[in-house]
């Protein structure tokens, strides 16, 4: 069953045309990677889905419902959680207050999370509950921002470059976390530059370049096509 479907969306920043007829489709319970180099349009795609930028044309359907044009808070309430690339922790708020901001009522069609469950998933957060967000390390902030989004009990989460700027040990931990979320039944769209990381966790991949979708296939298929990897992903 399709969970999220983008059909030919076009997104602009002012007069700059960023996304050109971008389409993608994610099934319920899938983990899908959106791959591409810096500036390819990954974050803009994410922001277009959550409504932080509004696509000028095209449709965004979630669970069979058109959500394009809704304000971010309504999209969130429909069941999409957004984890921004810059993390955007509330640095003056404590760890638990950060979680409180994300809290939303449980829903029957999504795994439901409590502060206790999240502390099991991210043991560091429990230890640092009274610390301010700004005092956490990069890896801890990344965990907090995911936990904060999970507090909204989403059906699907958008993870914008979860492996960026954190230590290699934490990256592995992050991969295990995503696998755990998949087991819980969560649908995940993650954007990545790191192909290795994407391979660890994703079933399928899309490749975006210059705001245009270039490739779509399973992770296994992508592994067999070094030319594609070379063309769109090599640094």
């Amino acid at each position, binding site marked *: 069953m399709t969970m999220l479907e983008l059909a030919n969306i076009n997104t602009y920043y002012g007069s700059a045309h960023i996304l050109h007829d971008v389409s993608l489709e994610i099934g319920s319970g899938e983990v899908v990677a959106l791959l591409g180099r810096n500036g390819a349009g990954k974050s803009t795609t994410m922001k277009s889905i959550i409504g932080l930028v509004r696509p000028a044309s095209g449709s965004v359907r979630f669970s069979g419902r058109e959500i394009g044009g809704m304000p971010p808070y309504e999209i969130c309430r429909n069941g999409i959680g957004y984890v921004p690339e810059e993390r*955007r922790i509330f640095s003056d708020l404590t760890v638990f207050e950060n979680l409180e901001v994300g809290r939303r009522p449980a829903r029957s069609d999504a795994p439901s999370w409590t502060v206790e469950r999240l502390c099991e998933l991210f043991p560091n957060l429990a230890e640092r509950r009274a610390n301010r967000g700004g005092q956490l390390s990069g890896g801890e902030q990344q965990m907090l921002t995911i936990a904060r989004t999970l507090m*909204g009990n989403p059906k699907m989460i958008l993870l914008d470059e979860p492996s960026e700027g954190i230590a290699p040990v934490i990256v592995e931990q992050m991969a295990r976390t995503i696998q755990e979320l998949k087991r819980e039944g969560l649908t995940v769209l993650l954007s990545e530059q790191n192909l290795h990381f994407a391979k660890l966790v994703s079933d399928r991949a899309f490749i975006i370049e210059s705001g245009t979708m270039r490739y779509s296939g399973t992770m296994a298929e992508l592994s067999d096509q070094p030319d594609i990897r070379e063309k769109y992903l090599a640094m």
Partner: protein
Amino acid sequence: MGFIVAQLLTGMANASALFLVASGLSIIFGVTRVVNFAHGSFYMLGAFVAYSAMQVLPGFIGFWASILLAGLAVGLIGLIVEVCVLKPIYKSPELYQLVATFGVILVIQDLALLVWGPEDLIGKRAPGFEGVVMILGERVPAYDLVLIAFAVIVLCALWYLFNRTRAGVLVRAATQDREMVSALGVNQSILFTAVFFLGSFLAGIGGAAQLPKGGADLLMDFNILAAVFVVVVIGGMGSIIGAFVAAMLISILQVFGVHLLPQSTLVLMFVVMAVVLVFRPWGLFGREEQAGEHGGAGPPQEPLRELSGRGRLVVAAVIGALALVPVFGGQFGTVLFADVIIFCLFAASLHYILGIGGLVSFGHAAFYGGGAYTAALLVQYAGTPMELALLLAPLGAGFAAMIIGWFCVRLSGVYFAMLTLAFAQVLWSIVFQWTDLTGGDDGILGVWPSQWASDPVVYYYLVLVLGTGGVLLLRAMAHTPFGYALRGARDSALRSEAIGMNVQFIQWMSFVFAGAMAGLAGGLFVFAKGSVFPTELEIAKSFDALIMVFLGGVQSLSGPIAGASVFTLLQDLLSRFEYWRLCLGLLIIAIVILFPGGIAGAGNWMRSRFSRAEVSS
């Protein structure tokens, strides 16, 4: 010892209302990014509503119920303002919201006059606290102690709200990153309205609680506004505890200042503010402001273009028409249009630093009035002829801008705005309180033009030549490399620095240039009127200029000219009605909501519609 303690308590009691109003302003700014100029008006309304309520509700309970009632009523008014005036324009540049709240001030001023009349109202004494308490042998009014306790209780209640309730946590989160809060499922629109209600409620109870001490009058709104800004800036935008500490600091200093140096009282708090900002540019408890932190900085402005051939013809035609005013306009028209030209120059000079430089100055009247006073003082004390005085007026204003600008360009955004306002108030206070030199409130009279220019028509032509010359010079500067550098610094200070420009120096020099041009306008004004009063340096004067620029439209060079002309003529027209403030206020709000690009923006919009129609036909 007893004396010092008694003074301390008086200061703390005075701080009470200041803290309530400032914390409200701070909370509203933190979440909505709106600097609510009308906050002083909410404070005033609180006092008036409580006055009326106390007439009806008797006794101890009635007194405190009236204060609560005033808070709720003002909260409701704030809510209405947010929903009807601000909601439609949240997407416009932040500064339009300022202008809209200024419109609200005017509307409330006249509505209060309509309902409560022009007389100052004296508040009832608080039942049960009419007497004095002896502390260390000094008599301290019992109600002073009540006010101090009241402020502390409100501080604790706010602390509880913001740290122990979900709503408070959401507000604090939104103060940091409201876009992220909305991506986490919080409806911003409701949050904004709630915060506006709370902030207005605080201003309302602030005005109500001080009623037994200060009464209620129609000047309360502007009188407290400057002090509130000072408190919020010293404490740090968005910080409640900061507002509390700063309100105490300022009020206590003020009380002791009266005893040590009576002449210094008005200047004192602004000096404290300037000192704090130089060392802690974002206030004692504030956080450094990061550009674009609170959502996008908006789309980049369209580049300015040099005038086309047709544009030049229009300018020539306008100047030609102005030259004919004395022929067809009679004496009345001549005097009125001299004012229009002077205000065009004043507004254009503000636009140079605000529109082209991107630095929003709330205190531009400092240089306009500075120029006026430079000329007037020279004539008064040195017998300087008009020609020389007109030359020295911009130099005097430029010199003031050099000193003030040196401090101000270190800051940006709302802190820059507040600091310019503070310095303008310092200058105003000096002029107002240094009666021996400036005549204080009585002003300086008898500053007339030289013999050859004494005829109003001749003087009109002098204004026309110097005024349009000044405006054209400002225009030309925008198209020099110096002007390009200023615009570059506005669009990206970081990138400008990276290619080797000294951004602060460029902004400083532009500030001086704009100040000098405002000084020229002030100099022309003083000889046109023959006198000058401290009102030329007032906050209201700076606001006039801001309104002219915003009404006209920030993003074009013709904007301030259009805005100044419309504003001056409108004011002349409307001031014949009894309730002209009400009309002007409503008009300003309507224009801001209907034409977010200002008058010039609306012109451009119509032109593009028109030319598109031409193409299609």
